[in-house]
């Protein structure tokens, strides 16, 4: 078999040439996005996932918001650093004495990206669009503070004229409210209140057309600091400077590239110079950055709470003492410090600290002894005879880790056994909706910076309250707070409501969210923001 050799050599030659080609491909080092971006004034941001849409009236997520913030602008904006309300399309406004009528005076420089002036009529069209039941806008309820908006949206009135919005002249918009809403001006920076360009909408379908293609590059007309230039699914969205923007000269960037890189890969992309900014940091890399590049690691408090929802309909969870036992036995400091590790804050109440300037006074204790006592009072001394309850979470490694830890805590401190169950996202949502669970992992992010966005969750009529817990006194307090004009008295009402919630514990708060990001030192003007609201006008890239 000596003649094998030449043939085998040939085969190996083939392999060797493949390896060589492999090496050759790897030659010449390319300029990274980060370098190119700094040179051209273009920001590369990781957004973690592909936005579902860029229509401000249809989207619900923060990912979508972060892109649309570059493309559209509402009546008011928020100061990038202080988050104070600032002029947007409206350059000034007058609030009536009863605080139920807002008159907005438009900035004559406010323009659409095709040069058209942004008019009050455009806003009326937009409000009508989002409130039209046929559009099926998931977040239309954000407009309910406006008089008649809820009735119109719920088809109780079919005349949009009954909604409290009007344009007395070409530069003025008047909005009337159901009741004084202290956070109203704040709310206006939410995408549901943003305008869309009526001719563009109508050119691509009816006003209530959901499947319209108006948000594609080349078609999208916006009034924000940037224009949509490119959008490829799972590849990236690019925006460039809008020359018609009212404060065009104040915009510090020439463009932004939003890259939907999966959160597991973002850190790698950051390290390789593909991104100036990531949407998250994997837990296992946090310590490395803390040690080697603390200046690139950013933790910002977020307006969100991670909690366990309890089904109080029947069984042991119907007993407040059992719920208290479960809540009091958890050592949240330990969980945040050793398991979560990304700077999350232990939650001893439901509303995150400093939500609209509100600090909850009610606190649930960490007291395993008291927890055992409560459980014994409920008829389960040392957890004896306690039925096996299920803890359900949506499939995710981090939820599982936390659930396992809490399962062990309850076993150790209370002597009770909990079964862990996971379901993929949509199945989990369906189970939650059907109320077929004992304990369920949940989270809530505030829609606006006010305790109402958290505490209204405990109202019996709230569609997101799946706990079967209701308390008429609690409902009355939340209703009263909505009508209270004195800010101090209003906060007191929330304090009272929160105290009821923390005593009854239909939900067990566990921790308050933190946004963790990696940020390149060249990025200036990116400030901590509770609502993850980072106006791009303020951002600059400097070497």
């Amino acid at each position, binding site marked *: 078999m000596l*003649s094998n050799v030449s043939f085998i050599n040939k085969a190996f030659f083939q392999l060797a040439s493949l390896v060589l080609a492999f090496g050759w*491909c790897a030659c010449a080092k390319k300029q990274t996005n980060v370098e190119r971006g700094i040179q051209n004034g273009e920001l590369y941001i990781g957004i973690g996932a592909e936005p579902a849409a860029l229509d401000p009236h249809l989207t619900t997520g923060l990912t979508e918001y972060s892109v649309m913030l570059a493309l559209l602008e509402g009546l008011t904006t928020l100061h990038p650093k202080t988050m104070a309300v600032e002029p947007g399309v409206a350059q000034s406004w007058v609030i009536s004495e009863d605080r139920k009528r807002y008159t907005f005076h438009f900035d004559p420089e406010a323009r659409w990206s095709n040069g058209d002036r942004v008019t009050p009529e455009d806003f009326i069209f937009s409000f009508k669009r989002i409130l039209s039941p046929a559009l099926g806008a998931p977040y239309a309820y954000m407009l309910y503070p406006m008089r008649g908006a809820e009735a119109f949206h719920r088809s109780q009135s079919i005349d949009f004229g009954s909604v409290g919005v009007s344009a007395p002249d070409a530069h003025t918009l008047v909005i009337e409210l159901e009741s004084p809403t202290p956070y109203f001006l704040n709310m206006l920076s939410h995408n549901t209140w943003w305008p869309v360009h009526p001719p563009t909408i109508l050119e691509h379908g009816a006003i209530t057309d959901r499947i319209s293609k108006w948000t594609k590059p080349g078609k999208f007309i916006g009034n924000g600091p940037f224009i949509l230039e490119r959008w490829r699914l*799972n590849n990236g969205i690019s925006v460039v400077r809008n020359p018609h923007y009212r404060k065009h000269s104040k915009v510090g960037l020439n463009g932004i590239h939003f890259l939907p890189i*999966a959160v597991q890969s973002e850190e790698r992309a950051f390290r390789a110079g593909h991104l100036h900014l990531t949407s998250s940091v994997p837990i296992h890399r946090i310590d490395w950055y803390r040690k080697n590049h603390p200046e690139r690691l950013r933790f910002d408090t977020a307006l969100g709470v991670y909690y366990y929802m309890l089904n109080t309909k029947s069984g042991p969870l119907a007993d407040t003492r059992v719920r208290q036992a479960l809540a009091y036995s958890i050592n949240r400091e330990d969980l945040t410090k050793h398991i979560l590790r990304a700077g999350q804050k232990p939650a001893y109440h439901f509303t995150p600290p400093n939500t609209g300037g509100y600090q909850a006074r009610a606190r649930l204790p960490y007291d395993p002894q008291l927890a055992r006592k409560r459980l014994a009072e409920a008829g389960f001394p040392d957890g004896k005879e306690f039925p096996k309850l299920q803890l359900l979470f949506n499939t995710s490694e981090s939820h599982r880790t936390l659930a396992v830890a809490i399962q062990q805590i309850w076993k150790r401190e209370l002597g009770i056994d909990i079964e862990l169950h996971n379901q993929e996202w949509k199945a989990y949502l369906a189970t939650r909706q059907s109320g077929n669970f004992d304990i369920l992992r949940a989270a809530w992010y505030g829609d606006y910076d006010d305790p109402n966005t958290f505490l209204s969750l405990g109202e019996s009529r709230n569609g997101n309250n799946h706990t079967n817990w209701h308390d008429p006194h609690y409902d009355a307090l939340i209703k009263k707070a909505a009508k209270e004009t004195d800010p101090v008295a209003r906060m007191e009402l929330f304090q009272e409501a929160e105290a009821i919630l923390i005593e009854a514990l239909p939900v067990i708060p566990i921790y308050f969210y933190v946004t963790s990001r990696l940020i390149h030192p060249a990025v200036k003007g990116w400030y901590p923001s509770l609502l993850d609201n980072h106006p791009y006008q303020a951002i600059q890239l400097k070497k």
Partner: protein
Amino acid sequence: MLTHIIKRFLQAIPTLWIIVTATFVLLRLAPGGPFDTEKPVSPEIKLQIEAHYGLNEGLHVQYLRFLGNLLKGDLGPSYQYAGWDVQEIIAQAFPVSLELGLWALLVALLIGIPLGVFAALRHNKPSESALMAIATAGICLPSFVLGPMLLLAFAISLDWFNPLGWNYASDRVLPALTLGLMYGAYIARLARGGMLDVLQNEFIRTARAKGLSLSAVVGRHALRSALQPVVAYLGPATAGLISGSFVVETLFFIPGLGPFFVNAALNRDYTMVMGTVLFYAILIITFNLIVDLVQMWMQPRTRNE
């Protein structure tokens, strides 16, 4: 030959119909719907949204309408990505997956065939065992392990390649290797088996006895028959490779079809699932047909069957 092709196409129609129908039914049996969200909308609004997509009608009406649209070549709008049609998404993402798949196929063939043939020629020698051990390990190594390993070695430690992206020619290398090596390992095993079978035949011995060199015997006489099992495998393998890999495309941030396939199912994006499943089914059927034709060419005996 032509009648054969036509016959196969006609056979494909009921197959596709069964696939589409089964997918339709399974999708509707899965808990949760496309418009269930973390902050659920009110029932009235949900009805409005569902009405946009005809989901408020009876299942049979939806099914018939789906089939009707399908005949017109309309896969409908994606439920997850408002404003995007399923066709549009496939048209945008498929060329990328196709390119990646073809590179991976090249890797698989260039590695698999020489390795397999070489191993067969070294039958019962330690080098054969070593090669086949490597091939078995290659088959067992899933892409979510191999990918990060290649990344760590060639992108992060050696810094030869970008760790993700699909912008430069060199960005093709690591994903193609990740995707192709596993198939290559499998092809190596098939090629080895085929070659061993063929080498035992009389005509090989005759050829050798006539004084032909080993390379001539293998190249001219043995290879064509030995590769039969490889060719049979290439049909489904090619369809699998070019229809996109969720793991590889997500890992390397490649805008291909793979992630859409998986995410559509997770999001209960009914139209998108139907579209991608149908597309994949057509690919498999087409490639199996091509394989049949190639096999006919390679094996004259089957031509008349």
